[in-house]
């Protein structure tokens, strides 16, 4: 199996990018996929707070940290490296990865590459998609509509929408459903992966005392997300297996 790089990015903040990354890490772990994650929200590291065991904070703008991510791909035991790219740095990161020849290696079949693009509802997001489109060829480009915070979402003009996506007919749309606010808030406070919250475990693996109602909300929500990732064949696409059809 080829090593996989999965980038999760958005060109603006507040669209729940890190939350989406967390769901992906839980999903892959549930599928018994060895993962590591790079948190490019340097130096703060929101992702690292929730998944400290597998997450390393990197400064994606530096050559040293780019090397740290790419050079270890072939040697590492982990199969999927998830990179949570901080707001506003998606286009820049893609460019940097191009410059160091990463995408050449992808074309040569050394690695697989996936991009989860978490988009907001505004027109600014459409422009941002246009910037990312050159990197979004193929079946590994996921447009993630995030409803976690139930924003008034995607009231896009269908014509504009089609226009933007004409060049990427293979783009896969993924919808993350809304999560009950109190449940979301409680997971934030707990600072643990969603799966640990459901399993009633604290940050050090000790027994926690989470509300069973809130755990129920998170469990149901995660089940929907798992169904959604299964539906689009996320893992098959990342592994370049042919089974998937969105």
């Amino acid at each position, binding site marked *: 199996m080829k090593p996989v790089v999965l980038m999760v990015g958005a060109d603006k903040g507040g669209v729940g990018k890190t939350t989406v990354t967390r769901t992906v890490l839980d999903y892959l772990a549930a599928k018994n996929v060895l993962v590591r994650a790079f948190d490019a929200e340097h130096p703060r590291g929101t992702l690292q707070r929730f998944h400290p065991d597998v997450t390393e904070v990197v400064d994606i703008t530096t050559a040293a940290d780019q090397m740290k991510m790419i050079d270890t791909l072939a040697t590492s035991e982990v199969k999927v490296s998830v990179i949570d790219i901080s707001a506003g740095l998606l286009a820049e990161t893609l460019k940097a990865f191009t410059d160091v020849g990463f995408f050449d290696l992808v074309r040569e079949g050394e690695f697989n590459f996936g991009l989860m693009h978490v988009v907001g509802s505004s027109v600014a997001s459409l422009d941002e998609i246009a910037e990312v489109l050159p990197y979004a060829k193929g079946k590994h480009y996921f447009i993630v509509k995030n409803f976690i915070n139930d924003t008034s979402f995607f009231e896009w003009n269908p014509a504009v929408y089609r226009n933007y996506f004409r060049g990427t007919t293979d783009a896969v749309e993924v919808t993350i459903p809304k999560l009950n*606010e109190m449940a979301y808030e409680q997971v934030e406070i707990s600072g643990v992966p969603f799966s640990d919250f459901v399993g009633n475990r604290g940050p050090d693996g000790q027994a926690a005392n989470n*509300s*069973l109602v809130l*755990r*129920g*909300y998170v469990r149901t929500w995660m089940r929907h997300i798992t169904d959604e990732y299964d539906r689009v064949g996320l893992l098959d696409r990342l592994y370049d297996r042919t089974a998937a059809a969105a």
Partner: protein
Amino acid sequence: MTVSDFSTVSTIEPLPPPEPAEPIDNANDAARPSFAAIVASLHGRTGKTLFARVLADYFLLSGNRPLVFDTDFTEQTLRAAFPFDTVVLDLSETRDQMRLFDTVAARSPEARVVDVSHYVFRKFFKVMEDCDFVSEARERQVEPVIFYIANRNADAYEEGLQLRERFSECALVLVENVFLGPLKEQTLRSAGYRAFDSHDLCMMLPLLDPAVAAAIEESEVSLSDVISAPLSRTDDSAFGGLTFDQRAEMRRWLMKVFRDIHRVTRAAEQRASLRVPIIDY
């Protein structure tokens, strides 16, 4: 025991920790699960709230003062009428869902009675299912029992059947209320009704004089007192102005219902003990 011995919990304060259990004379009782009785019916006016009150009194008289939850936020029937610790909940609020399910599934010796208003019927069971309430409660030595009151309509049995399937791990007692009248022909023929033919946990609410039924719903009448006080011809004032004969009927009715409740709860408990081999009787 008088009404003033009991308090009513306000709707805003967080729940106080459960009071320590009264000393139990039977040492083995400590290992027994406490019951969470969920009283529900698909439609209104089935005698559900009356039954919930009788259940609460049953637990009270068996030395297990219950905590009562009323999910009818608008009418608050139980709180108005009950001398028990009663929590009124608005299930459209997550906070109140937590107060209900987290408290009912908590490890504590007292019985719990939940009156599920037909207005929140689907919401209640959705949350109950989503939070995996039955196994969570059992982990904490709480044994949930659904008392499902069917009325004359076929859809009530159909819904009961679905509940039984959704919560197959949980004991479901089918309660039929004679007061609602004979079943419709259509109901008798329905698949839902027939599916309950071989159901093992059933009980009947016998007919009750409407005046007596009305008196039971009066807050001043303590059912415990009706049962425990000697039946006297002189002291009519104490029980909502009921005559001697009416009090005698209430007593007969209650004894009959209590016996049935005892029977089905023991049966449910026995099943629970089979499932949890650790409990040593």
